[in-house]
């Protein structure tokens, strides 16, 4: 049993940490999220240049053969920097689906561009009624000649606004909750009948509501076999859940550090906050919450790497724990900052906002507790 990172993973971690500490400054981030794009295309280019975008792809696809542990290393480090660039929706979700299900043509067309940072993609998997159930899909796709006709509504599509292509989950057969009958389509958002409503989320990321009205997309845009998308979709979302959990662990580690530092300097009643025992014990508790989550993160990354039988269950255990710890660490960090914790100017509140949205993304505690129990 070995918990240590490989040489390469340590180098990767170092390289991201250096980037985050030196270049990804808080005020730069704050400016970037207020732009139309919502992030920095220069930074995205850097990610590509440093090889981070290619990490999860096979060498055959032009990538670096990275596994779940590499992904964990990347996201934990990006989390510490509160990096808003859309690594998960673009690389992990869309790239993950294309690399798993794509035809040789589709892979050749899309993966090199994802790896080089030329294109942005997204995956439209949720609907207003679906909450976190991946199999709950009303959006329909009907074959007509050489095309499919898509109708439906996809909600809160991460990275939707800047996506050159969006992978849409649609139902080609079966009933609303069936796992069978789901198909994926690589949809060009400029097609007739596709309308996007773009917006910012509270965490600074961008998303879209997508309406599909009688959209005709060529049969060649089908990704994978018709009706057979569920298991690949679930696998990719599970990997993305690991990724976003790693991001949360990075964020919590950083928030604990910032808060501890703050309490060591802020004085009240003639003493630093850190000298009050009641606050000390609460900081010990947030530290332990972080440690517990980190342990499950490592376990989950290992089980996904080993393709263990209980890997899915490990994902749900992890995300459940992330939800619990994120609320605990997030709220306590703000509280211990007092008034400063709720101002837009200081970084702690922005870490808090991202940590808060992560609680729900890919399923909240209730959802994953039930999934854990059912698996």
């Amino acid at each position, binding site marked *: 049993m070995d918990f240590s990172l490989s040489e390469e993973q340590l180098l990767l971690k170092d390289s991201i940490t250096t980037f985050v500490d030196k270049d990804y400054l808080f005020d730069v981030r704050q400016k970037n999220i207020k732009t139309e794009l919502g992030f920095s295309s220069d930074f995205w280019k850097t990610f590509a240049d440093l090889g981070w975008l290619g990490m999860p792809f096979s060498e055959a696809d032009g990538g670096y053969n990275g596994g779940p542990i590499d992904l964990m290393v990347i996201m934990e480090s990006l989390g510490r920097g509160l990096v808003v660039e859309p690594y998960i929706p673009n690389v992990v979700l869309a790239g993950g689906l294309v690399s798993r299900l794509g035809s040789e043509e589709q892979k050749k067309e899309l993966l090199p561009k994802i790896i080089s940072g030329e294109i942005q993609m997204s995956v439209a998997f*949720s609907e*207003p*009624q*679906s*909450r*976190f*159930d991946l199999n*709950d899909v009303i959006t329909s796709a009907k074959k007509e000649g050489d095309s499919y006709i898509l109708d439906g509504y996809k*909600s*809160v599509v991460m990275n939707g606004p800047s996506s050159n292509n969006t992978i849409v989950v649609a139902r080609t057969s079966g009933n*609303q*909750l069936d796992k069978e009958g789901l198909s994926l389509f690589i949809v060009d958002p400029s097609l007739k009948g596709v309308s996007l*409503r773009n*917006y*910012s*989320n*509270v*965490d600074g990321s961008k*998303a879209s*509501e997508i309406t599909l009205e009688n959209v005709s997309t060529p049969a060649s845009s089908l990704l994978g076999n018709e009706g057979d998308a569920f298991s690949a979709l679930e696998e990719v979302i599970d990997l993305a859940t690991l990724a976003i959990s790693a991001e949360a662990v990075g964020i919590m580690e950083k928030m604990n550090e910032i808060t501890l530092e703050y309490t060591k300097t*802020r004085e*009240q*009643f003639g003493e630093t906050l850190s000298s*009050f025992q*009641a*606050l000390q014990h609460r900081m010990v508790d947030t530290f332990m919450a972080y440690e517990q989550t980190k342990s499950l993160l490592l376990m989950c990354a290992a089980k996904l790497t080993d393709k263990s039988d209980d890997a899915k269950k490990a994902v749900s255990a992890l995300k459940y724990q992330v939800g619990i710890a994120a*609320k605990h660490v997030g*709220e306590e960090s*703000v*509280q211990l900052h*007092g*008034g400063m*914790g*709720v*101002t*837009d*100017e200081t970084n702690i*509140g*922005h870490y*808090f*906002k991202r940590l*808060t*949205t992560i609680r*729900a*993304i890919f399923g*909240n505690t*209730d959802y994953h*507790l*039930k999934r854990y129990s059912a698996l």
Partner: protein
Amino acid sequence: MNLSFSEEDLKFQDEVRSFIAENYPADIKNKMDNGIPVSKDDIQTWQRILSKKGWFAVNWPEEYGGTGWSITQKHIFQNELADANTPTLVPFGVSMCGPVVYTFGTQEQKDRFLPGIINNDVWWCQGYSEPGSGSDLASLKTKAVKDGDHYIVNGTKTWTTMAQHADWIFCLVRTETTDIKQQGISFLLIDMKTPGVEVKPIITIDGSHEVNMVYLDNVKVPVENLIGEEGAGWNIAKFLLAHERTGIGGIPALKREIRRLREITSELPLGEGFLKDDELFMDKLNKLEIDLLAAEYSELRTLAAMSKGGHPGPESSILKIKGTDLQQGLSDLFVEALGYYAHPFMSEDDLISNEGRIGPDFAANVMPHYLNYRKVSIYGGSNEIQRNVIAKAVLGI
């Protein structure tokens, strides 16, 4: 012991309910019901309607324009206001400055300041916190130096809610530097139009502008604006903090909101059913409702004890902690209810124009509310300070 409403109480309830139904302006109601921010004008309009009826300064002694209502009547009134989703009454004049003036002020001061508060012509804000002081309120540094018939005031106040709308500010200032920091503090009323007063917005993590920095740079304040003795400000501050805390729990509003959340669970689609089919979620809702019930009756017990004489004591600290816990917990449950739809951010302008909401109608305010409500365990004496107060005053340690 008898906790039921008498015949007269029920009649009073009808009267209040009818009055609100007939007099609550439809445009303001529309904004409140749809999460569109209300303006200062809206609030002023509504408060004047209540004031004209004699129902604004509810808790004041009758001689100054109060109602003389019983505890039960006040309870009914607050509940009816909250049920109708009327704008929260701004406390700085009517609940804070007013009681200080009629308790500690001279006759002249009463005559001068109370009418403006009760008829809503003069808006107040509170100058307590300072950048360095935080929970340690008594460490405040804003200085007021006597110069003939004026004080010259210098310092910075922060977290000043609604300062951008206020005509006057009541301030704690240091008139003397002593070894015991609670001494030498005075309570001063300052006209915001005085030269040297500058207000700068603080934007909070929910994106709203509610609080401000207030810079006081050689502000000349007439000595007749001093309330109470010079150096007696700390006692007034303590009196006020206890007053503030009873209101801070916001139980009636919580009751309306939890009812609303229960309705929402029947509206929000979930798979082929609704959110109400989710037992885990409903458990949390029910637990919070029971907790709220306990807090409501705790508040009633405190009010009943107060009605038999005496100001709210350390019990108000308990109400503050429980009330704010519930506010935060409920705002979090709203966030959970929405799933992904809690994430889209709408600016205040988006809301006022009321266009392009994302997801369910009520969604836009939910996350801002959660984020904004982080403050409630921090302000008005942080919940940590409240625990210190209870330990000392109730447990005697």
